[in-house]
């Protein structure tokens, strides 16, 4: 029953297409959509889902886009949609318009629609979802919820999904609630049977078992970061809700409930405070860390702006703090549900006075976990704020990544903390003394020793023994030591990862964070077009020496970022004293995740403009 005036030959693709679900926020579609995505994973085919949602709770449109890619491309593909599951009448026109020629439109045809609402060049698949669910269920909430499972059932027939995998997932999801499992399985088959009986199944987009998922796991970056905080020994979390960072604090709450409740006393080995604002959250983090606990906050751009004064205090007073910034776009109402990399500079140079901060750029949930745990070691070791820069793209979407690992023998690096025994033995203590030549002084926790090691914490007006001083030389000495400490940080933050092109080239590209999968894919597309790029993924700031060498070794380096101003490029120019002409901006900033198509087109265009023939590097 493929209804189309002239039959269009639909796209023919196996394990390589994009499905998009257009839903109404609050309609309960999220769990059916996740089920769809996970069951494809269980077939051994990599997928990457993305939530595209407005800043609203109920009633407004949401989309869930799933890229299926046996080849393993995890970045957004860009371009149109191959199969649109159009469940939202409100967005119908734009949804239909977004289908690629030859693509498919799946919709609820209970109410007939005039032909003018369709397109000639697509394949239209109508399933009377409302009719089916109205017949099967009496309660309106049930009709609503099961409609999602019914469309999943129909899709399973149309795309040749592995039904036992879906059933298994349902059983896992509702473990122990057999009635619910049975009801869901029944709804699934209702949709499936209808499709098999009434439609030509499968359509041109099909799924086939494959083996390219491996042992990878499927998790949100925010959850992985929260888990990293649990493993890293964080005990205090102070936060103020803001999209897209809230789910990080919420995941921390969940994992602490699971892993951090003393089994005997039922008491908590953690404290999570929903603070009154971001000034208070960072203040609490600083207070807790000053007193020797590992503490963090999670926020987004507007929160970073509010934390500025305190961040400066932590920098000058040398107090560890971990700040997760899940980046979004802009202040006030500004696109809180869109992704960007726009806080690089406001974090790198946060606060007044001469300040510089350590930044970490995880590329996926695996690194969110790793870097989160590491950030607490870095904060303690360097006694300074550490910014973990995620974004909505990795923070709030489930992403396939390597399984998380933990070395049982790993110890927390609490940094230079003088103990009661050392003080008792007469070891010299001066809070801001550079005893080891690395710019990092010793600290003491309050209450350590009755007569030794106490000091007064304040901003900049102090000497190296933390005595009050407004003398110029004391100030300068301290500022220069802080620079030395920042230099030490270069060796401690994760090193950049370089990858050479398959052929020698004088072109390079630098990228970071969530741009990773799109860049990987763009590399291949460009190589096919004869443009070869050496790549460097920057993972931390201050920049490691390798970054400067990489730029030095190439004639032109593209800096690929998801912001308007080329913020990482600015940081590279400023900190490494690079000739700006050498660094070409490749900037994507419309709030959607960057795509391989965008990167490859932009770089190909620029290579043309530059008239730099990608000459082979002289082979030594």
């Amino acid at each position, binding site marked *: 029953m493929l209804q189309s005036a002239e039959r269009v030959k639909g796209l023919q693709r196996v394990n390589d297409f994009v499905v998009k679900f257009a839903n109404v926020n609050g309609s309960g579609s999220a769990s059916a959509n996740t089920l769809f995505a996970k069951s494809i994973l269980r077939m051994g085919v990599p997928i990457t889902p993305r939530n595209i949602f407005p800043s609203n709770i109920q009633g407004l449109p949401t989309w869930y886009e799933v890229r299926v890619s046996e080849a393993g491309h995890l970045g957004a593909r860009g371009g149109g949609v191959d199969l649109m599951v159009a469940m939202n009448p409100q967005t119908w026109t734009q949804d239909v318009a977004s289908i690629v020629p030859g693509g498919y439109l799946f919709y609820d045809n209970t109410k007939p629609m005039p032909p003018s609402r369709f397109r000639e060049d697509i394949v239209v698949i109508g399933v009377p979802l409302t009719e089916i669910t109205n017949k099967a269920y009496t309660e309106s909430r049930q009709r609503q919820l099961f409609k999602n499972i019914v469309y999943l059932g129909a899709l399973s027939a149309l795309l040749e999904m592995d039904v036992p995998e879906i059933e298994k997932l349902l059983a896992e999801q509702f473990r122990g609630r057999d009635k619910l499992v049975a009801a869901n399985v029944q709804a699934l088959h209702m949709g499936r049977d209808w499709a098999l009986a009434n439609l030509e199944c499968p359509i041109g987009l099909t799924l086939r078992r494959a083996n390219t998922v491996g042992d990878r*796991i499927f998790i949100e970056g925010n959850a992985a970061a929260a888990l990293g905080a649990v*493993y890293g020994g964080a005990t205090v979390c102070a936060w103020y809700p803001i999209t897209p960072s809230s789910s990080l604090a919420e995941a921390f709450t969940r994992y602490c409930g699971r892993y951090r409740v003393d089994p005997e006393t039922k008491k908590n080995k953690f*404290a999570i405070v929903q603070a009154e604002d971001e000034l208070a959250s960072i*203040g609490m983090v600083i207070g*807790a860390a000053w007193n020797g606990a590992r503490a963090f906050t999670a926020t987004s751009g507007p929160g970073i702006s509010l934390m500025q004064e305190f961040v400066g205090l932590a920098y000058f007073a040398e107090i560890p703090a971990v700040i997760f910034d899940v980046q979004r776009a802009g202040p006030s109402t500004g696109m809180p549900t869109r992704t960007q990399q726009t806080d690089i500079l406001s974090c790198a140079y946060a606060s007044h006075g001469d300040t510089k901060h350590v930044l970490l750029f995880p590329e996926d949930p695996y690194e969110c976990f790793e870097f989160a745990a590491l950030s607490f070691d870095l904060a303690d070791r360097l006694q300074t704020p550490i910014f973990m820069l995620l974004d909505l793209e990795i923070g709030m979407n489930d992403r396939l990544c390597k399984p998380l690992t*933990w070395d049982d023998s790993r110890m927390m690096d609490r940094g230079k903390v003088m103990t009661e025994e050392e003080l008792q033995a007469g070891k010299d203590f001066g809070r801001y003394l550079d005893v080891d030549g690395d710019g990092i002084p010793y600290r003491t926790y309050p209450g350590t020793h009755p007569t030794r090691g106490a000091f*007064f914490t304040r901003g900049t007006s102090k000497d190296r023994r933390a005595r009050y001083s*407004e003398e110029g030389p004391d100030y300068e000495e301290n500022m220069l030591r802080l620079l030395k400490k920042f230099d030490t940080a270069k060796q401690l933050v994760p090193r950049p990862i370089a990858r050479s092109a398959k052929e020698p080239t004088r072109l390079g590209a630098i990228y970071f964070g969530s741009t990773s999968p799109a860049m990987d894919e763009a590399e291949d597309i460009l190589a096919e077009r004869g443009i070869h790029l050496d790549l460097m993924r920057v993972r931390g700031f201050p920049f490691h020496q390798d970054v400067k060498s990489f730029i030095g070794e190439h004639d032109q380096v593209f800096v690929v970022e998801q912001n308007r101003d080329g913020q990482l490029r600015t940081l590279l120019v400023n900190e490494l004293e690079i000739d700006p002409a050498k660094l070409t901006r490749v900037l994507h900033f419309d709030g959607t995740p960057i795509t391989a198509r965008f990167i490859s087109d932009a770089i190909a265009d620029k290579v043309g403009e530059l008239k730099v023939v990608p000459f082979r590097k002289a082979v030594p």
Partner: protein
Amino acid sequence: MTFIPKPKLHHPELPKNALGYTRRDYEGAVSTLCAGCGHDSISAAIVRACFNLELPPHRIAKLSGIGCSSKTPTYFLGASHGFNSVHGRMPSVLTGANLANRDLIYLGVSGDGDSASIGIGQFAHIMRRGVNMTYIVENNGVYGLTKGQFSATSDRGAKSRRGVENKDEAIDLVGMALQLGATFVARSFSGDKDQLIPLIEAALKHQGAAFIDCISPCVAFNNHEGSHTSFDYVREHNLAVNYLDVISGREEITVEYAAGTVEMVKQHDGSILRLRKLANDYDVHDRIAAMTYLQERGAAGEIVTGLLYVDPEPMDLHHHMNTVSTPFNELDEAALCPGPAALDKLNASLR
């Protein structure tokens, strides 16, 4: 200007407390405040209170915001860790510190600008969370450090040194603390150490959020005719409802008092507050009556001082959060890290 350490001359005849400390051991650096500033009297009272209570100085953490008042932690408890944080934000830093180590004694010092203007939000929230601490506002009705602007606690109608009248309504921090659930609320006057020292002692012994609004005249900018926080004005309008003595659980109580004039309040840690009542009808256990009383007396132009409210069995933030008794900063890998096996299990659930 550079800090001048106070020479630690130990007079052998100075009395020692049970820990073997003299009063000097509770002092700090020489004050750099204006001679006669009320804040210095409060510092002296803190020194006395800690000495009297026999507190080990290093087990106290003193935190403050920014202002002349917030500078004072340098001038007392030199053997304690101190933290001069940012303007108006001491409460959040203190809250975090308290979460990290519940075993220390937390003393927060602030000013009326610091707490009632820029920091009013954090002031409110630390009270409602019930953080176990002593929070003292050294209230002079002006910004001393920035040279005499009105603060949010200045009374409507009060006059600045240049004769400008304050047109805005005052914020009463005591009223706020009562409404927000502080479990120990007092007001005192830097010029009345007999009232102030025991109040600080009682607050330090209290196991919840203890707040003291201490009127502390600024001799440089707010001690003139027309000011409502000058020494003369406060002396004239002071209505003390009680005086108290703090008796450690160990001491024996022998003296007897006429019924109705004295009340013994036993606090959770065993210490006893002996309240010598001046206003017989005043009940320190009735939060709502306290608020009404303050409003009434305030409208009549009186400044009510003394212990205004106490809940001898307070619940603090750690209680609300159900935290372990071990300070967080002593928890090690074994206590905090779920380890690789848990992670493997989790990985398996994410496929």
